[in-house]
């Protein structure tokens, strides 16, 4: 049984190939097209999935799209009808797009597939959006049965769901429906605080810890949110007071005027100075989000009485909320789909088709503590021939050395304060880089955060970096109760590693606060003394594990900074060419691709441009 899953036309299009219940390949289109959050039909990602397994189109049993466009259209029409005559302008803008393209997606998908080489189109199916999310978390989790919680902006009608998965079946137990949505509530604050909706949510999450935890202002903001904007019920349902939101009928998330009055502050314009009040508001909405997610999880527990929980949907990428949920220990085991956003919908749609539509038997991991995402390394890898083709094209100067020498050289480079571009094996599926397309640096260096943010990543200086730690040493650094292979939870840095805050810590300007050395791992210890942890496991990423082990042998420290191998506004690198281009366009000192080492000082003059976004363009 071979099923191809597709997500496209909204944001983060992707393709995934599953064979007999196992995920064989999955990738986002943006990595090939080099357009961040590319929503177009995932032609390149599909080609990759087929090529990876040497599968020809006629061998595919079914192709499945990750949501139901007509159901979405129904929601659109009913929403306009309910709010009429409000929303006329939005209606005029949206309807032509639907009439020309989205209503006839089936035809469009078939045309695109024919262009790729599908002479005869296999069975074409459509799954519901939240079922795709639920399946993307449940089937790869390895759990025989589990509660499944999916939370995002909106699919067709559902914005959150509680399901129960048992072997092959997934049963929907409860749904929250549009326009009441936790994802859209968070996006509304993303907009109000000057970040881009649908991509800047993680910046809002990174900003929240700069708020003053014990402050009347944060408390007041929380109260306003929970009394004026949101009616939070005991089961985690939320009802958003639509008088304050305009996303149902307008082209913006909220009414600026009303929100300015409500919070007694102006909307922050993009790339303007961030003040304490912005941080406090970010902290308030983050806390409300955590509260809602926890209530939903309690309800999921109540409805299923399961010891296992699976999480997916865009809100499941909120690693601060995940960390808090895990600390509550409501469930014995929790699995969060690493590609929890819409890209992962392609994978979920394929797996749902296999197990629900075709009744394909499930595959379980050999060890009970492992999952079936294989470290999320489901993207393409590149052969030595392809690396050498890049070397020839750019006349790059690189040396092939043994892996042992690679580990040693990179460990020494990191220890001496250099920044390393690291590309090995198969690319990660999902938004996180997990040690195959990473920029690495020394987490002990107090200067490195500033250097990485401003000189390499060209991004906002307030944004934190995440650590990769050897799984077996994680408890020496972090208060972590379960492995975190996909970097999807934040937990505190151990108290004995932290330094005492100065008395006026929270009154200090943001950058002073940022550059205060909070621990002996200052570059990865966020303002609130937490870290977004990735535990590195030898079974899933041997080279990366060996590298950190070499760094540990040299320095005694089992932690390195792991940030995605890209610059602001660009997708994470995919090919050796992308990696070399990013290396040459930034101040990365050393590049490693497979067994090849490239030192910056050896490289020829580079005159090619890059797509690095200026800070004034939202990303």
């Amino acid at each position, binding site marked *: 049984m071979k099923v191809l899953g597709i997500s496209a036309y*909204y944001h983060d299009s992707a393709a995934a190939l599953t064979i007999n219940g196992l995920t064989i390949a999955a990738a986002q289109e943006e990595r090939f097209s080099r357009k961040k959050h590319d929503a177009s039909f995932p032609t390149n990602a599909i080609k990759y999935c087929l090529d990876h397994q040497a599968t020809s189109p006629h061998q595919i049993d079914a192709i499945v799209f990750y949501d139901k466009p007509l159901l979405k259209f129904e929601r659109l*029409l*009913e929403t306009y009808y309910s709010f009429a005559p409000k929303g006329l302008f939005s209606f005029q*803008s*949206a309807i*032509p*797009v639907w009439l020309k393209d989205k209503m006839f997606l*089936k035809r469009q998908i078939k045309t695109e597939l024919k262009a790729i080489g599908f002479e005869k189109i296999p069975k074409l199916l459509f799954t519901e959006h939240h079922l795709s999310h639920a399946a993307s978390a449940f089937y790869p989790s390895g759990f025989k049965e589990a509660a499944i919680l999916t939370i995002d902006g*909106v699919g067709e009608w559902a914005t959150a769901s509680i399901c129960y998965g048992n072997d092959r079946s997934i049963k929907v137990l409860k749904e929250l429906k549009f326009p009441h949505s936790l994802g859209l509530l968070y996006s509304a604050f993303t907009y109000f605080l000057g970040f881009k*909706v649908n991509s800047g949510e993680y910046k809002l999450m990174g900003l929240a810890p700069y708020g003053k935890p014990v402050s009347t202002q944060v408390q007041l903001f929380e109260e306003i949110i929970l009394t004026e904007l949101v009616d939070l019920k005991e089961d985690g349902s939320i009802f958003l007071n639509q008088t304050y939101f305009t996303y149902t009928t307008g082209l913006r998330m909220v009414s600026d005027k009303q929100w300015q009055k409500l919070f007694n502050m102006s909307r922050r314009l993009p790339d303007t100075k961030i003040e304490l009040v912005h941080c406090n508001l970010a902290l308030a909405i983050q806390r409300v989000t955590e509260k809602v997610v926890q209530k939903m999880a309690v309800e999921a527990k109540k409805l299923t009485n399961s010891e296992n929980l699976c999480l997916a949907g865009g809100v499941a990428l909120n690693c601060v909320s995940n960390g808090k949920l895990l600390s509550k220990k409501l469930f014995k085991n929790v699995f969060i789909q690493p590609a929890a956003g819409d890209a992962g919908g392609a994978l979920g749609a394929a797996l749902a088709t296999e197990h629900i539509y075709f009744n394909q038997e499930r595959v379980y991991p050999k060890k009970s503590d492992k999952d079936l995402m294989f470290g999320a390394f489901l993207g393409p890898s590149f052969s030595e021939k392809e690396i050498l083709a890049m070397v020839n094209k750019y006349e790059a100067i690189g040396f092939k050395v043994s892996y042992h020498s690679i580990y040693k050289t990179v460990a020494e480079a990191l220890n001496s304060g250099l920044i390393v571009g690291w590309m090995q094996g198969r690319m990660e599926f999902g938004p996180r880089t997990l040690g195959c397309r990473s920029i690495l640096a020394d987490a002990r260096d107090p200067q490195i955060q500033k250097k990485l943010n401003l000189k390499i990543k060209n991004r906002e200086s307030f944004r934190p970096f995440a650590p990769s730690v050897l799984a077996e040493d994680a408890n020496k650094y972090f208060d972590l109760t379960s492995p975190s292979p996909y970097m999807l939870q934040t937990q505190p840095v151990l108290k004995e590693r932290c330094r005492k805050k100065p008395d006026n810590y929270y009154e200090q300007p943001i950058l002073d606060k940022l550059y205060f050395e909070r621990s002996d791992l200052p570059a990865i210890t966020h303002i609130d003394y937490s870290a977004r942890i990735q535990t590195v496991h030898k079974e899933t990423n041997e080279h990366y594990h060996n590298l950190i082990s070499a760094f540990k042998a040299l320095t005694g420290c089992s932690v390195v900074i792991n940030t995605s191998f890209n610059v602001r506004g660009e997708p994470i690198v995919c090919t050796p060419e992308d990696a070399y281009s990013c290396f040459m366009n930034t101040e990365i000192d050393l590049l490693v691709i497979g067994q090849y080492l490239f030192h910056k000082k050896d490289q020829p003059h580079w005159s090619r441009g890059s797509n690095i976004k200026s800070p004034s363009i939202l990303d």
Partner: protein
Amino acid sequence: MESIKDIFNFLKERKKWWLAPIIITLLLLGLLLVLGGGSAAAPFIYSLF
């Protein structure tokens, strides 16, 4: 033709016949749009649409 059949089946399954006049009107408008070669550039309205 397949698309029209899909829409019909959809309305039948969802028992939303009241949407039919709206959809028919919109489809006729859409036909004009396609014949007129008008632009249907996606507006900046987030993921809702």
